[in-house]
């Protein structure tokens, strides 16, 4: 119900924003290397590769992201297990420096015991960005909170939230941008009996005309 309300509000905002700032489609895409650490019942680390893309139409933005790689016990010699993560967001820019988005975020990985844990979050995200080194260096901070979630664990879902902060450097006279950030997701199940934290550094390169 909460997800439906947020989705409806975002859709209405997006429709108004599209009419108000009608422009051509502005695509952007990038690749990232994410050093990931998952700390829950197990502690798993690894480096995964990701790709993300956005298409903007006026103030409306649609974003997709995908990550895949191997993670395994820290310092262990065992072969890593798959970590797959995907996100789809529909967002609007009420102001040039602010984006509000919502959408599903799924994550799946294998625990050392062989159990595959699958998460599905419905998230509401807010992202603020602004130039701080001339016009080439922009900083950003994004926070999200899960409106609802489902996970194939015996504990009931309590809450989840996360964030990412970093900077994006646009190379002069080229539509290329470099990204360096730190992200963290934190989920709580069963009233705190089970906690899962996923964090890591993000190094990316992308193409953008914005």
């Amino acid at each position, binding site marked *: 119900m909460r997800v439906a309300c947020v989705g409806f509000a975002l859709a209405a905002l997006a429709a108004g924003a599209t009419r108000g700032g009608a422009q051509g489609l502005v695509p952007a895409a990038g690749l990232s290397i994410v*050093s990931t650490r998952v700390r829950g019942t197990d502690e798993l680390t690894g480096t995964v590769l990701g790709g993300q893309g956005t298409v903007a139409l006026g103030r409306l933005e649609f974003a997709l992201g995908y990550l895949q790689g191997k993670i395994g016990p820290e310092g262990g010699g065992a072969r890593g297990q798959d970590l797959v993560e995907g996100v789809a967001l529909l967002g609007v820019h009420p102001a040039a420096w602010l984006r509000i988005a919502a959408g599903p975020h799924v994550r799946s990985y294998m625990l050392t015991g062989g159990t595959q844990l699958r998460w599905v979050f419905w998230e509401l995200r807010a992202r603020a960005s602004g130039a*701080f080194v*001339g016009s080439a260096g922009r900083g950003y901070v994004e*926070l999200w909170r899960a409106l609802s979630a489902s996970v194939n664990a015996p504990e009931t879902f309590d809450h989840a939230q996360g964030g990412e902060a970093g900077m994006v450097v646009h190379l002069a006279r080229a539509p290329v941008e470099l990204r360096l950030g730190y992200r963290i997701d934190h989920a709580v199940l069963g009233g705190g009996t089970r906690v899962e934290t996923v964090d890591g550094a993000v190094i990316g390169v992308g193409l953008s005309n914005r």
Partner: protein
Amino acid sequence: MRRSLTWIGLLVGGWSAAAAQGAAQAIVSPFAEGIRAYQNLDFDQAAALLRRDLARSSGSTATVSERAQGLVYLGAADLFRGRRDSAVAVFRRLVQLDPRYRPDRLVFPPEVTSVFDNVRVEARAVVLVAPADTEISTGSGAFSFWVVASAFQTVEVTLRYQDGAPFRALYAGPMGDSLRVQWDGLDAAGQMPPVSRVLLRVASRAPTGDLAGIVQLPLELRAVHVDTLPWPKPPADSLFRPERSGSRPALRALLGGALLATTVAALPSVVGGDRPSRSRLVVAGAVGFAGALGYVLHRPGRPLTANIQANKALRSRWQQAVAAVKAENVQRRDDVRLSIHAGEPTAIKPSAR
């Protein structure tokens, strides 16, 4: 008797041919009565009426072509009255009035036209046809006028001061029907005439070299100086960009980097994760370093090359505009225009020896 009948026959023929044209002309011409009397073969009456009307007429009451028409009828009437000398004198007046005038050979018999042609050749009359008002650039421009002659002759076209002293010869030589002459507004020394009134004189000479007649046209001269252009105003201060960086970008880089680095480092505390990885410190350090680097790159007082270039281009455009105006003003100061107003021409007959 036979000769008189021939005359009468020719006159009647001429009258018949001109009947339609004459009917219309008689209504509007100031010499209608005399022409009608001529057409009725009452030459004495025609001569008296035409002489009276010609004496009354002036430039305002009759046009040149109307006066020429009155004169040709008067000359023909005098000729048919047996007063050839009087007819010749009338035709001479007609040639001097309009050297290009030719009697209609359908209206007037050969006896009339042949006398007229003889007078035209002997009279050697010229008229000057010049625009009433002209403005020229001295040296490069030209005041153009036409010399129209009744017959082939030798002419001398000169410009003279009011006392008659010549200061510029424009043409000397033979001419046929007409001659176009130009004056560049300067005297023989290449200077503007230092007077406000000069005379344009055309002297006709007989084949023997004797002066046959002079036509003078007074010209009123006035030097017209073209106004110079004002210099373009220098660009307003608001159009210039700052050429040195202020402190704001540097502080924004330093404080923004510090704030962002702190946010990265504190993000686990905000989100609630326990024992976060050290990678956040690496990222926070990089962001802080970027802010410090931005401070150095945007340090206060740093020359802003792009703005300096833009300001230089702005000043250069203004200086180019000033240079163009200066060049234009130099040209305008040198470009003295001469306004020429032509007066009424006068004919001077050489004194008989």
